């Protein structure tokens, strides 16, 4: 792989990144998947589509959001100069909305009237319900019953926005099972329905399309860092569940050899116990439309993931990450629930910013390595979402039962 002169050319015309990706879906869906690919191929070259996407990002989402120099974290960690990419300041509070804007424009272009989506933490569900409200489209969100309980505020937000939230009780009733039910819905309502997948996974063209819509993150970081510091960053750190915030930050920098790129998986209770670190603890397999690293047993049965963060609680990962892992271009590491919780509290107090538990995984790893780096090292951490939705979970995890009951 070291002979590659670009890491940004994938996927091939069949949707493969090396051996990963592809279109492993039921035949009923194949014609629709092919039509999504065709429609997206046309839309991305259509100046009117691109202009509408950019206008909505600017006026509705609030982009560009800041690349914030976190002086207090820099001082506390005692090494690299720390910058936070403030995706938490987007409308709806996370990076998920970038992709939703792009795909809702595509769904309208394809004449689809009903939108379905899966959600784990509820951020993608809220973002999808939001764009459906904006365009007056019917919206059905599949969410695991376990997640509905631990992300109650987001469930109510979706309902206020006019979405129907369907609880999923199969399996462990989390993100994987929500995705199964969303696929079952899509195969049943194939004529009028668009499945707005929330991450860089699923059948081709979704991994590439979601990456393209999220690449606004990395494109902005490049321009902002050049304007603020006069050069490119030295390292990028982002958390990974499916991996869309990470891919959006990383992709514009993949061909910059001076930029060290680090993805942080959810190590849950530790890799010898329950976790969600697919790359470190899994092996290649086929699920939900693509080949990628999966947590599975010897018989190819998918295993339940665990993370304190509902948004990372998934036994797979986007196929392009699997390819970047094998090629060695991106370093993939993991942190535990406890480390993420500690970073959550520390950053909240140090900077007055409450990060999402997902983003806290990236912050926890940055805290480990920042002190070993020189003071002129420019490190960008993707603050992919805000943590308001997580205060209940955190209160419970910290044993603050009283607060946990109130919030």
């Amino acid at each position: 792989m070291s002979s590659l002169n670009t890491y940004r050319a994938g996927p091939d015309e069949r949707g493969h990144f090396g051996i990963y990706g592809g279109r492993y879906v039921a035949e009923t869906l194949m014609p629709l998947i092919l039509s999504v690919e065709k429609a997206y191929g046309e839309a991305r070259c259509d100046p009117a589509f691109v202009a509408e996407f950019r206008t909505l990002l600017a006026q509705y989402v609030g982009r560009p959001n800041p690349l914030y120099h976190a002086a207090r974290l820099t001082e506390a960690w005692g090494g690299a100069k720390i910058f936070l990419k403030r995706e938490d300041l987007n409308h709806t509070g996370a990076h998920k909305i970038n992709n939703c804007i792009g795909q809702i424009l595509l769904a309208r272009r394809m004449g689809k009237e009903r939108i379905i989506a899966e959600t784990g933490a509820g951020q993608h569900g809220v973002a999808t319900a939001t764009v459906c409200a904006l365009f007056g489209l019917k919206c059905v969100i599949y969410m695991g019953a376990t997640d509905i309980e631990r992300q109650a505020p987001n469930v109510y937000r979706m309902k206020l926005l006019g979405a129907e939230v369907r609880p999923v009780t199969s399996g462990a009733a989390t993100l994987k099972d929500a995705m199964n039910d969303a696929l079952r819905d899509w195969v049943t309502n194939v004529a009028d329905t668009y499945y707005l997948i929330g991450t860089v996974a699923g059948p081709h063209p979704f991994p590439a399309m979601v990456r393209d819509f999220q690449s606004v993150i990395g494109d902005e970081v490049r321009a902002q860092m050049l304007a603020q510091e006069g050069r490119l960053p030295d390292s990028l750190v982002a958390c990974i569940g499916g991996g869309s915030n990470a891919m959006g930050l990383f992709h514009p920098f993949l061909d910059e050899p001076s930029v060290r790129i680090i993805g942080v998986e959810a190590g849950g209770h530790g890799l010898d116990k329950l976790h969600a670190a697919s790359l470190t603890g899994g092996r290649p397999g086929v699920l939900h439309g693509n080949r990628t690293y999966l947590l599975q047993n010897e018989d190819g049965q998918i295993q339940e993931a665990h993370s304190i963060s509902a948004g990372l609680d998934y036994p797979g990962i986007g196929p392009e990450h699997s390819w970047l892992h094998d090629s060695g271009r991106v370093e993939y590491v993991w942190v535990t629930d406890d480390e993420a919780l500690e970073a959550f509290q520390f950053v909240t107090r140090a900077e007055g910013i409450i990060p999402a538990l997902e983003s806290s995984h990236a912050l926890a790893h940055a805290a480990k390595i920042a002190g070993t780096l020189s003071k002129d090292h420019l490190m960008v951490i993707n603050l992919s979402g805000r943590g308001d939705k997580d205060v209940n979970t955190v209160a419970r995890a910290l044993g603050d039962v009283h607060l946990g009951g109130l919030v």
Partner: protein
Amino acid sequence: MSRLATRLSSLAADNRAGLVTYVMGFDPDRATSQAIFDGLPAAGADIIEFGMPFTDPMADGPAIQWAAGRALEAGGSLRGVLEMVAAFRKKDAATPVVLMGYYNPVYAWGPEKFCADAARAGVDGLILVDLPPEEADELLPSCRANDIDFIFLTTPTSDDARLPVIVGNASGFVYYVSIAGITGTASASNQAIGDAVARIKRHTSLPVCVGFGIKTPEQAADVARLADGVVVGSAIVAAADEAKKAGADPVAAALGLVAKLAEGVRGARK
């Protein structure tokens, strides 16, 4: 000639459709599942689809989702399913057995080795719901090398442009999924099924078997007038489950329903 081809051509010679029955391996446990499996030919099944349990059956409705859950709970595995086929083969050398499920367990086994091991166990065909023609080239050579028919699915969304792509590599028979949806839910009209089978037959000379949403002997008889084979799965799986929950014999319940379905299918064109 393969077992599938032999059976399908003798059915054609008798001018009747075949009854294709689906049950899940290891549901609700290995012994019960083997007893149902072994009893299917005598009850009237012409071809047997044997389900390989998977944690994430994305194309299945509740009846088969729950069956997969019970099977895995009972220790179901791909290895165990192959052992059950081998045990069946000791008693029945003629009835074709088609394994049906999802790709990941097969991929985890290794496609080449799996096809060789499956053929050795006595498997005749393979249906993998999430391996469309676009990705099937990673498995087809191993299937062919081991004389295993890879059965492709056609659906209401397969138009005249799409059908040649699907049937181009098909062997054994072509499976027509009669509804856009998951197993064991809605049923298509006879008119829609008849039109679809006629359309598929313009693109292939292979027999066409129709499944999804066929639950009763009457429905089976209707479809038997329109197609070369009638596939029933969820209804049999549910009959066994309901019997067990009611304290009755799941083997007798499953095979009893199969006998009635067979009666419907066999009498259809008379």
